[in-house]
């Protein structure tokens, strides 16, 4: 069995939007071991060179007249990360302030890596001006359009909530595939940025006991603006049900992550032994409009309680039984 692929989070957005602030926030708040690559074109960082070093490797790469040197740089950075003693659990790439995050995201398709999410930062105070700037309007709009999660940062600089609502509506139009998240100092809940921990516990660290209450029904607050819920699955879920679930996600859902057994046909209520054997395990994920189903190698001796789906949504946007209703359409 090949080792699990390293999830890659790309952090993009125009100069000064708060990318480095977000990277630092993630490094401070996440329990994961994270390697950071800064795709820096010799930009001047406003607060010194401030990626916090705690438990992370920081590597810089940059571009030149001749673009092949960039490929060389990324390959070298990756080799360096892989040859380091302990492998990281995540790769965070801070894109340059003028880079197209979608292009940087292409690195997430390197064998051994897996693109998790493209997080794009927008400066709440500046983004309107930037998106209409004579020189960088197209760059900024391209960046916004590439987002899975659009973080409207520096909300503290706006006068009132109405201004913020108006701005977020306008940005949602430019970032059609994204879930819009508001933040100050890039303090987006870590589960929103990296995916719900309960399901990732299930997927990556099974030996760890499930956290108390993680499986309790209903919503749990995720800081101020989000709430999460987890549904534990005691049987395979028919493939069409999974597909319908992924297709039904609105932009109120910031993240969904689950480890499921997909049954080829309907009949979740009367699962037979044969169906269970036919079922294939998948890691399902969603961030913004990006959804994925990755076949997941499983150990058949594991107890069934680890099959679960977690989702994080904007507070108050979905009813308490939303996820359960989608998983049991017949009930």
């Amino acid at each position, binding site marked *: 069995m090949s080792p699990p692929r390293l999830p890659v989070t790309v952090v993009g957005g125009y100069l000064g939007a708060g990318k480095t602030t977000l990277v630092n926030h993630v490094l401070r708040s996440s329990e994961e071991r994270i390697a950071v690559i800064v795709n820096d074109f010799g930009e*001047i960082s406003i607060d010194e060179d401030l990626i916090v070093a705690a438990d992370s490797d920081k590597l810089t790469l940059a571009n*030149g007249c*001749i*673009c092949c040197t960039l490929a060389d740089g990324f390959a*070298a950075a990756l*080799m360096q990360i892989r040859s380091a003693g302990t492998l990281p659990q995540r790769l965070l790439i801070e894109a340059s302030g003028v880079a197209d995050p979608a292009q940087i995201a292409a690195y997430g398709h390197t064998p051994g890596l897996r693109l998790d999410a493209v997080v794009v930062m927008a400066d709440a105070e500046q983004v309107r001006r930037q998106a209409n700037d004579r*020189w960088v309007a197209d*760059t900024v709009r391209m960046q916004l359009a590439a987002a899975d999660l659009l973080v409207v940062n520096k909300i503290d600089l706006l006068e009132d909530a109405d201004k913020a609502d108006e701005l977020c509506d306008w940005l949602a139009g430019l970032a059609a595939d994204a879930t819009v998240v508001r933040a100050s100092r890039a303090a987006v809940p870590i589960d929103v940025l990296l995916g719900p921990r309960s399901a990732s516990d299930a997927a990556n660290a099974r030996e760890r006991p499930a956290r108390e209450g993680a499986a309790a029904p209903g919503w749990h607050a995720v800081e101020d603006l989000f709430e999460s819920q987890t549904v534990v699955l005691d049987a395979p879920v028919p493939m069409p049900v999974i597909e319908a679930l992924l297709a039904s996600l609105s932009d109120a859902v910031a993240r969904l992550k689950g480890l499921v057994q997909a049954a080829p046909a309907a009949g979740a209520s009367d699962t037979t032994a044969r169906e269970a054997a036919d079922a294939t395990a998948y890691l399902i994920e969603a961030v913004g409009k990006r959804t994925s189903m990755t076949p997941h190698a499983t150990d058949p001796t594991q107890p069934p309680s680890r099959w679960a789906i977690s989702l994080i949504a904007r507070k108050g946007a979905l009813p308490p039984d939303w996820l359960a209703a989608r998983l049991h359409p017949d009930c």
Partner: protein
Amino acid sequence: MGTPQPFVIYPARRVITINPAFPFGEAVAVAGDRILGVGSTDELASWGEHRIDDCFADHVIMPGFIEAHCHVMSGGLWNSTYVGYFDRRDPQGLLWPGCTSIDDVLERLAKAAADMTDDSQTLLAWGLDPIYFPGERLVARHLDTVIGDRPTLVLHASGHLATINSALMDRCGIDETATSPGVARGGDGLPNGELHEPAGMMLAGEAFADMMKANRSEQARWRYANEARNAGHTLLTDLGTTQLWDPEQLGNWKKVTSDPTYPARVMVAMSNLFGATADPAELAELCVQLKSEQTDKLRFGIVKLILDGSIQGFTARISWPHYYKPPPGHIGNGMWLTAPDQMADLVEPYHRAGLTVHCHCNGDEATEAFVEAVEQVLERYPRWDHRHTVQHCQLTTPDQYRRMAALGMCANIFSNHIYYWGDQHRDVTVGPERAARMDACGTALASGVSFSIHSDSPITPLGHLHTAWCAVNRVTASGQVLGPDERIGVPDALRAITIEAARQIKMDAEIGSIEAGKLADFAVLEDDPLSVDPMALRDIGVWGTVLGGVLQPAQISKL
């Protein structure tokens, strides 16, 4: 005071001095590494004890050519096999005929593979330019048939693509499950061996790293200078390829240039690229430090920045109406590599440190951003004679040239583009009108902007007679004249490749013309560029150079 030391008089067919006050001489006298004087043999003999050397009696002597925009990669790439479309001379002086068909490319590769002794070695090649093979495509299958199992990588001329064979795909784990958008697929839906853009090319990992590693070696530096000498150049720049904070790369420059036989002077630019610190003030300080330790042959004091991409790659920033016939799905304009509104802050520390900033600007929007940044910095910190230079300067408009003149900026114009991609610029990238005013030496001259012209080697071959030929004739590869009104005369082109190039790297007090007291750096030519038909300029033979008084005949080198 008498003669500094016994000196040598070189009578010549003609000495072209590029000194308007004394344009021509019959001979030049050299004392040690300096020019004692120009004039008639009798006039020079009157300085005192001397020796007359007639070896250049039939040659024309000019100031050594100065290439103010090229990269040391030019020497490193010759570790790999050349498969470009145009004829190219390697640093050993060997002519590699252009590969003008896919079959030529394959034949060249097959021969290179057959010549390799170590079975485990990867075959590396460079210079493939599929723009000249419309409708055809070199893919892994082709490579497999002629090369078999030896892993093979062919880097395209654009630097944005590579083609690899099945053996290398296997080694790198590239198969039908690949999800990277950088992995191109054939009609059958399977990866065809083409890797696009950095995200694709990096999948070739080590093969790629090997190719790039070669640029950091001593050998690359020797080859670089040998190639230059063979073309009449006495000074090369390395415009942002060397990581000067890496002791190995800096050490290799120091090592080669301290060898008295090393055949060129080198001006190595400081750059903020390739993993530098993000703080320009630190880089400025390092550059000033290096400058204080510079030698006659190893120079510092210029800084390379970069704003946009390339025109033929549709990544240069071009103002409205942008690109003429961009490929389907193109986003409309090129891309910024540096945020334009950060340029002034980026330029400022270098400017204040007394350094000269050279910024890559292919599109006119990039030029505008740089000119504006320089304007802002000058308002904050007025400084005379900075000579900040717009590099490439390909679509710079007449109004921009006027502003540059007013600000004291220089231009280094990519004249070789007219020949190598002029047809594509007219027909595809920018259309006839703007192609006609690309690389506008005529406008630069009329605006009073000091300008040089360049090859950007390895992007196009190093050789100032060819580059001057482009500026003078503006003839494309298909033989058509592109923008005749931007042509300049041969005398102006000769200034551009000598004194004006020296000026923008602030070495015009020492080199760039043949005058008493300057360094004895000459290009020794087989014919007179001012007498031949301008269309024959690029065909003039080069005997070699004189570097600091030392004869450097063009030669088949030992490397």
